[in-house]
């Protein structure tokens, strides 16, 4: 006997997984300790799990972090399956298809996540550069005044800071 299997994209980043679940209409909900006691089902959920709107014999299907990854927990026989929550009129899709769609959504969400990180890094560098210019300006003015210069501040045609220091000797 031989077999070929394909695993899903490893779901590693919680925010990206959450985004991906929203993209596929799984209405993710993070289980907090505050709402934990209000959840009743055969599968014991824990604070930190991510519930979906997919339900089976054991109750809500959900994600749980195991080590570095989030894994999907569900009834292996897919018995008594249905969609609950706000999208209850949707048709239930089998686990394998759901995970395939979720993998694609996760990849898209991950790419967006990388773009967001790149933008945050760009903004950080811009702020760092501004702070560097301001520190240089402030230091030059303070030292000039301490050494008896009068200081006139302006901008040149390129918009750069220009300090004119003058003193008589």
């Amino acid at each position, binding site marked *: 006997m031989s077999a070929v299997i394909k695993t899903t994209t490893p779901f590693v980043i919680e925010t990206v997984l959450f985004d991906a679940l929203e993209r596929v209409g799984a209405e993710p909900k993070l289980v907090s300790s505050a709402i934990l006691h209000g959840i009743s089902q055969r599968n014991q959920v824990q604070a930190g799990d991510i519930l979906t709107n997919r339900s089976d014999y054991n109750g809500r299907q959900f994600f749980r972090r195991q080590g570095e990854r989030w894994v999907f927990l569900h009834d292996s026989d897919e018995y008594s399956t249905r969609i609950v929550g706000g999208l209850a009129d949707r048709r239930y899709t089998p686990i394998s298809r759901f995970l395939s769609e979720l993998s694609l959504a996760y990849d898209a969400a991950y790419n967006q996540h990388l773009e967001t990180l790149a933008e945050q890094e760009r903004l950080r560098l811009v702020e760092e550069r501004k702070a560097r*210019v301001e520190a240089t300006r402030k230091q030059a003015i303070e030292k000039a005044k301490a050494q008896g*210069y009068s200081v006139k501040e302006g901008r040149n045609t390129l918009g*750069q800071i220009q300090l004119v220091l003058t003193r008589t000797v």
Partner: protein
Amino acid sequence: MPEQQIVITIDDEGAITAKTSGFKGESCLEALEELLELEGVVSNVKKTDEYRQQQSVQQVRVQKIKRT
């Protein structure tokens, strides 16, 4: 009384270009050193014709980029 002047330009990266006038000889460089702590950060010094005269004019470009 003689007047000493330094014009400092700070570019968008924090690098400094400084131009002096009214200083005697090497004193213009000393004045810039005192003001801007130039050791190890000057990338270019351009001495003008006036530098060899009693009064000097100099341009100094300084790269002052803080490493983080």
